């Protein structure tokens, strides 16, 4: 195939064509919508799908160049090596700046193409405008790639061998983390496009919320998995056992997640009750703006961190321009058009809507604290040259206190009726959850001693979320009201959205338990060991056996064998290693992680000692895996909610019925 013509050149040309088509898509459908010309409007769908084809072709060409180790492509030469395992040749495509931007645009084109293909029942003008806004974003980033980060630049003469990929990134974690994260980031672009299109239209359609929510949900789902994956990757790859560092790059993905979670909930209000329209539009704009900000922070190189592998200032300025244009432009449009949007239904402060608004306010405030914590050090450094680090202490004082009332309130939300709720009734129905929570706190205190009151309360908070979620399901199936054998059939008949809510909220509780348990009850031992010596980490005894030097495909490694035993019984031999990558002259640490139920034993090797000993860092992390398992539950909740395709209408309980019977949740169509 490559004998006939150059695949790399074809990929380059396809990328350029994608730009040309995106420019048309940015303008013609808008014109068509304004003139109500159906033929011009239809150009939007056709170009959108064709752009997806071209960007896909271009991406495939780059992957091909990596697979055949075509070092005449500068990007391949700079980031690959012929001896690299095939998996990392492929994942190396997006392990670098240029390739990851191409992946970004590919996902953008994918979402645009999906709207074009499956947006058949959208109002035509809305769809045209959504696709046009989507094309603005695509054009901006395609221009960015072609002007500053073209992955198809060729080298002549062709170098003999590549420079290899940053060894920290040669990991299965990298294979999945960025694509998931980008699916999340870029997925919010659809919510953004819908918001801007609604502002241009000057009205928020009935179909608007119905459309925005699944897209937001999809993006949120991937972002949840992406962040969780990234956290686990940092945990096992960086070798110091932390799972969250409040690192600016992590925050960059966490901010859109927080505001995206808020958007998800406000979109429910809008879909069911037609209320909070303007607020939802604003959140959609803010969420994608934060995604763009995240892209800017990571891709411009303003941060110096493991993730920031791009350092060219021209790129930074270009992305900053994109950022200013899109955020400034959309907010200006919002300021101009939002007052003309019609407000929706009214509701009492104590109601499902009120609870969701409560959620929104706290999540937005939390986003703001992370925003300040991330950007303040950068601003300070830019103005005064002073370098400061904002870390866990700041967030413990700001972010955590905001989370506590929010998490406490979570089980109440689904218990309250639309329009006007009954707080006391909801509390009564949550009685079981409250009892179980109290019991959990007492049991935890018994096991850990009275000194750990705060951690015990933290565990209680997690239990409250889990049991509260189950309580809601039980309540809705009538189990708490003596429905008896009807309860099962009622339970089976519950709408999927009810299960989705319960699964996601319980997942949140699982994560909270994991976080509290790991932070409060972790055992850490660092000692220098000689052969035969051992150290203690919790109930486990770790004995240093021996050391084996080995050679991998593109690295050398020192394997340290450690014997793990408990109560005098040998359990296993584990082998944490230190690797050295020749091509990049870099060393990495591969920790040995052993899972016992939900807890983990984490062993990593420090610097070698003068006397031939070795520094072993051993951590016993109780229930640490719950952090990520919980996030899987949250994502699963999102997935279940996505499969619930029904229209949702939220209606208050008719007052007469309320008087006649005991208070119950409104279930109308929910």
């Amino acid at each position, binding site marked *: 195939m*490559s*004998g006939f*013509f*150059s695949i790399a*050149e074809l990929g*380059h*040309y396809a990328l*350029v*064509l994608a*730009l*040309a*088509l995106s*420019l*048309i898509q940015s303008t013609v459908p808008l014109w068509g919508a304004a*003139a*109500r*010309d*159906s*033929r*011009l*409007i*239809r150009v939007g*769908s*056709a*170009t959108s799908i*064709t752009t997806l084809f071209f960007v896909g072709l271009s991406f495939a060409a780059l992957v091909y160049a990596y697979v*055949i180790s*075509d*070092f*005449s492509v500068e990007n391949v030469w700079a980031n690959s090596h*012929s001896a690299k395992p095939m998996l990392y040749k492929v994942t190396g495509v997006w392990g670098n700046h240029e390739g990851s931007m191409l992946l970004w645009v590919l996902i953008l084109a994918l979402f645009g193409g999906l709207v074009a293909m499956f947006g058949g029942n959208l109002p*035509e*003008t*809305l769809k045209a405008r959504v696709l046009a806004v989507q094309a603005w974003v695509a054009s901006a980033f395609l221009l960015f790639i*072609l002007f500053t980060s073209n992955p*198809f*630049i060729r080298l*002549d003469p*062709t170098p003999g061998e590549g420079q290899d990929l940053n060894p920290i990134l040669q990991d299965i974690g990298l294979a999945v983390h960025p694509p998931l994260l980008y699916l999340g980031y870029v997925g919010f672009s659809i919510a953004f496009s819908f918001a801007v299109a609604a502002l241009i*239209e000057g*009205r928020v*359609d*009935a*179909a608007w919320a119905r459309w925005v929510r699944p897209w937001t949900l999809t993006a949120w789902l991937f972002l949840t998995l992406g962040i969780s994956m990234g956290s686990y990757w940092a945990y096992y790859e960086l070798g110091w056992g932390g799972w969250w560092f409040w690192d600016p790059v992590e925050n960059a993905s966490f901010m859109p997640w927080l505001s995206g979670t808020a958007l998800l909930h406000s979109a429910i209000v809008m879909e069911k009750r037609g209320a909070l329209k303007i607020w939802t539009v604003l959140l959609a704009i803010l969420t994608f703006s934060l995604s763009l900000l995240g892209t800017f922070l990571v891709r411009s190189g303003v941060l110096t961190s493991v993730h920031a592998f791009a350092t060219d200032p021209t790129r930074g300025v270009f992305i900053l321009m994109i950022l200013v244009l899109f955020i400034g432009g959309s907010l200006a449009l919002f300021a101009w058009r939002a007052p003309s949007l019609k407000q929706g239904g009214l509701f009492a402060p104590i109601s499902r809507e009120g609870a969701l608004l409560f959620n929104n306010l706290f999540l937005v405030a939390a986003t703001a604290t992370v925003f300040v914590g991330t950007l303040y050090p950068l601003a300070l450094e830019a103005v005064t040259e002073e370098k400061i680090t904002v870390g866990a202490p700041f967030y413990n004082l700001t972010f955590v206190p905001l989370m506590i009332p929010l998490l406490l309130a979570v089980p109440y939300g689904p218990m309250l009726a639309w329009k006007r709720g009954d707080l006391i009734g909801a509390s009564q129905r949550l009685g079981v959850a409250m009892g179980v929570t109290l019991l959990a706190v007492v049991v935890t205190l018994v096991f850990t001693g009275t000194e750990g009151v705060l951690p015990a309360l933290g565990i209680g908070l997690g239990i409250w979320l889990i049991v509260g979620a189950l309580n809601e399901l039980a309540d809705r199936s009538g189990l708490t009201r003596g429905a008896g054998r009807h309860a099962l059939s009622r339970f089976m*008949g519950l*709408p999927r959205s009810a299960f989705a809510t319960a699964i996601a909220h319980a997942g949140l509780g699982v994560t909270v338990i994991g976080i509290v348990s790991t932070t409060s009850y972790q055992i850490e031992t660092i000692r220098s060991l000689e052969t035969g010596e051992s150290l203690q980490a919790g109930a486990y005894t770790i004995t240093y056996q021996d050391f*084996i*030097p*080995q*050679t*991998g495909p593109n690295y*050398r490694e020192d394997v340290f064998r450690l014997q793990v035993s408990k109560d005098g019984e040998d359990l296993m031999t584990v082998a944490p290693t230190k690797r050295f990558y020749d091509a990049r002259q870099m060393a990495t640490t591969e920790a040995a992680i052993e899972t016992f139920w939900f807890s983990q034993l984490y062993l990593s090797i420090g610097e070698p000692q003068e006397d031939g000993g070795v520094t072993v860092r051993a951590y016993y992390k109780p229930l640490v895996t719950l952090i990520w398992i919980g996030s899987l539950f949250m994502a699963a909740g999102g997935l279940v909610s996505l499969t619930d395709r029904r*229209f949702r*209408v939220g*209606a208050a309980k*008719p007052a007469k019925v309320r008087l006649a019977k005991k208070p119950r949740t*409104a*279930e*109308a*169509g929910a």
Partner: protein
Amino acid sequence: MLLWLAIAVLTAVAILAVLVPLSREAKTVAPGAAEDAAVYRRQLTELEREREAGRIGKEEAEAARAEIARRLLAAEREAEPAADRKGGLWRRRATAIVALTGIPAVALAFYMAQGSPGMPDQPLQARLGTPSGENISLLVARTEEYLSRNPDDGQGWEILAPVYMRLGRPRDAARAYENAIRVLGSSTERQTNLGDALVMAAGGVVTEEARGAFQAAIEAAKASEEGAPEARFYLALAKQQEGDVAAAVKELRELLEGAPADAPWREAVQETIARLAGAQNEAAAALFQSPEPQVGPVARSLPETHPEVGSPAPAPAPAAGGPSEEEVAAAAEMAPEDRMAMIEGMVENLASRLEEQPDDAEGWLKLVRSYAVLGRKQDAVEAVRSALSSVSDQGGRREIAQLATDLGLPGMEELSQ
């Protein structure tokens, strides 16, 4: 040529993506509110289906129906009749013209600026084209993979190690030997090979690590008759690299004395002794060279200048004022006493020349260094003192003071102030 054909096809696809929808039949575009009403009507039908399937309670269905009906009424009130706005031929024409000209123009402008249409793909496999070269690395890779699963196969490590050596990967070879020793135990041969690999990896320097290996080799050889001549040879070289050439020569002589008459390596050792003797002279001659390479206690930098194991230090290029190549060669052939006399003569010459022309930083540096090497500390201190008072160039004076400090001459602190 085929690339251009592909480019043409892709461009056509892009243009058609715009032209095809333009050519389709036009239809009326409903205003937004009418669409809203349609959505609500669909919701009502769906609600009815839900109720019939029993998935929603009767009261809830009633409440929801009332809510949807309210929204439907509002939407219908708002919806004005759809305006029929057909035509717009000029819009289609304008769009088509932009597509037909703009797409190729933008695409080609960007592509021609950065693309390399004439350049074919360069897959590595095709460029290598030598399957045999591939095979050995494949074999090594396979063995590596096997050993990572069976790290306790000492035999495997022992086979892989010399292969690494031949491939010019001494560092990997050293690790393989370390593994072989770990599994199969220490032996003279393995330790010597390990040391050999380490020396090669360090570019010819007998490092601390390598010395450990050689010592272990000698230890292991104690029981056997052969001993560990190679290890002893390397340890002697280590002495030489530390600057103690005399000890190196002495150890090599001992090695030679204990060697059987028919030992195949006799000649090699003899040659080395001769070379080292020569190197001793060159070291002396180097006094007269520009500051590096230095001799005596300062000579630790010498090993790094060795490109290969066991070869003598390369003869430094003669500098002005130093002995010529012939002189050095002559010195090498002299008896030790005569050689000493010659060197001292040269030093005296330099000293008297400096008395006449004292403003010569280079010369003083050489003289101070020579005195230091010959062990004439007092003369060295005197020379530094004279130099500091007579050299006009400040940089030169600083250099002389620095050298004095480096050589650790007594009482220099006050002098260099």
